[in-house]
């Protein structure tokens, strides 16, 4: 069972890893984007932590919606509305809940990814965050359906995301600013997929 404290821990750990990987994400974004992804995500999650105290007494859905508003109002770029919509839809899907079952989390992750797809219209293989998130959610869902423990299922999700990130390297970008590079975007790891992977890893670390 995932308790509220796990969710709060997840957000803290996410902020931590994004601070730690700030320069690395920006470096990835320099190669195929506009050199700001690390800074933007770090700024966004700093704001998330700053505003967390106003929401932490509320239910998990409300906490996640609060995260969405923080991200939407501080991240900017394409990641702001994309991650903002992800947390918004994830929050909506678990409205009123004080704790989550493995099944609830499945619904929540799926809703989050659906939100990103709705906003950004990316498909698997476009070299975006979807390349990490979609396989991760699939892996998690089939693990839960097969009766795996929550922690095992989350580990499978993280593994799938990690592979998804690696798989972005040879891809040609079809969305966002990297798409202007065409062939030249080959050989570079996608920064958005990478930050998605960090968020999932932080979730796994919090639930263990």
């Amino acid at each position, binding site marked *: 069972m995932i308790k509220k404290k796990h969710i709060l821990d997840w957000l803290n750990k996410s902020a931590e890893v994004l601070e730690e990987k700030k320069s690395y994400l*920006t*470096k990835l974004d*320099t190669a195929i984007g*506009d*050199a*700001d992804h690390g*800074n*933007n995500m770090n*700024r966004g999650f700093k704001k998330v932590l700053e505003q967390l105290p106003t929401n932490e007494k509320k239910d998990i859905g409300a906490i996640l919606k609060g995260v969405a508003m923080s991200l*939407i*109002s*501080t*991240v*900017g*770029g*394409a*990641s*702001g*509305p*994309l991650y*903002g919509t992800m947390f918004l839809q994830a929050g909506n899907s678990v409205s009123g809940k004080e704790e989550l079952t493995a099944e609830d989390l499945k619904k929540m992750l799926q809703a989050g990814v659906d939100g990103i797809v709705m*906003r*950004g219209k990316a498909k698997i293989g476009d070299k975006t965050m979807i390349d990490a998130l979609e396989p991760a959610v699939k892996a998690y869902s089939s693990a839960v359906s097969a009766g795996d423990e929550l922690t095992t299922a989350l580990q499978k999700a993280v593994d799938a995301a990690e592979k998804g990130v690696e798989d972005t390297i040879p891809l*040609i970008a*079809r*969305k*966002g*600013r990297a*798409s*202007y*590079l*065409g062939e*030249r975007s080959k050989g570079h790891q996608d920064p958005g997929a990478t930050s998605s992977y960090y968020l999932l890893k932080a979730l796994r670390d919090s639930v263990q």
Partner: protein
Amino acid sequence: MKKLINNPDNVLKEQLQGMQAAHGDLINVHFDPAYITRKDPTPKGKVALVSGGGSGHEPMHGGFVGKGMLDAACPGEIFTSPTPDQMYEAAKAVDSGAGVLNIVKNYTGDVMNFEMAADMARGEGIKVQNIIVDDDVAVKDSLYTAGRRGVGTTVLIEKICGGAAEDGYDLKKLSALCKKLNQNGRSMGMALTSCITPGNATPSFEIGDDEIELGIGIHGEPGIKRSKMMEADEIVEFMMDQILNDPAYTRILKEWDFDKDDWVEAEVTDQPFKKGDQVIAFVNSMGGTPVSELYGVYRKVQEICEKQGIKIVRNLVGPYITALEMQGCSITLLKADNESVKYWDAPALTPGIRVKM
């Protein structure tokens, strides 16, 4: 790299404070969230014109706020789209009841954030339309990329639509004019050097001392090709060839349908220039290239237009849509008719562009 800044985290705030101090007679700068409005409220019944985008392109957009151009501008972090709360607050501040037209450059982040903001403002009962500007002929392919970027034509649109809004165009008519101008405008940029965003140690992209990037976007996004350094005339010939001979361009653009009360997607095609066209020609510095070199470029632009039977009826030369300290330039041609020339000539009083009042 040396920069005339203090703590990189405060760059945007300090620049906005400076704008307020310098141009307090024309604009008001608001903070948390950041947006710039014209000093006098939007006249009753006038459609409010709003734009915005990442900072680092000054004077665009904040420098174009004022009578005859924008009612509000939303500055994002350097090279980062502004956020929906900025656009939402700006819309609420400048709507006089006649609605808001958001002029949105076609960058993934700008488009998504302005869409969210428009949805939020509509929730407050404000009539909002978003019109996308996508004029960069360096991007050939709309199917497998985010499509042409919004660059130089944006400046001309903000001037012309600003004049038309002052003249009483309603939201529908103004949106139609904005769309027409976008379809009539074509641009291309090039870079001699890269640029560094404040707080970053390395340039936004790497380019050799003897190399140039042809078809660059306004953040250093790559374009058509990397080439060895050439003489100015040769560079202008390449750019003008792209602008003049790029074939008809078809893409899907999203806008709000007030009858259906929903976003709709429409296929839009624009046509290349042809002999006999009249144009407004705009030669722009990316920030680091001096105006003297721009005139060298303009000279060749005019020569090529003349040879092709295209008549330049108005022009703009200078740094108006920049990319920090990047050396390089962009060229924009906008097919002009009586309507666009009339409002190009209309009075404007903004920090960045002034036309006799």
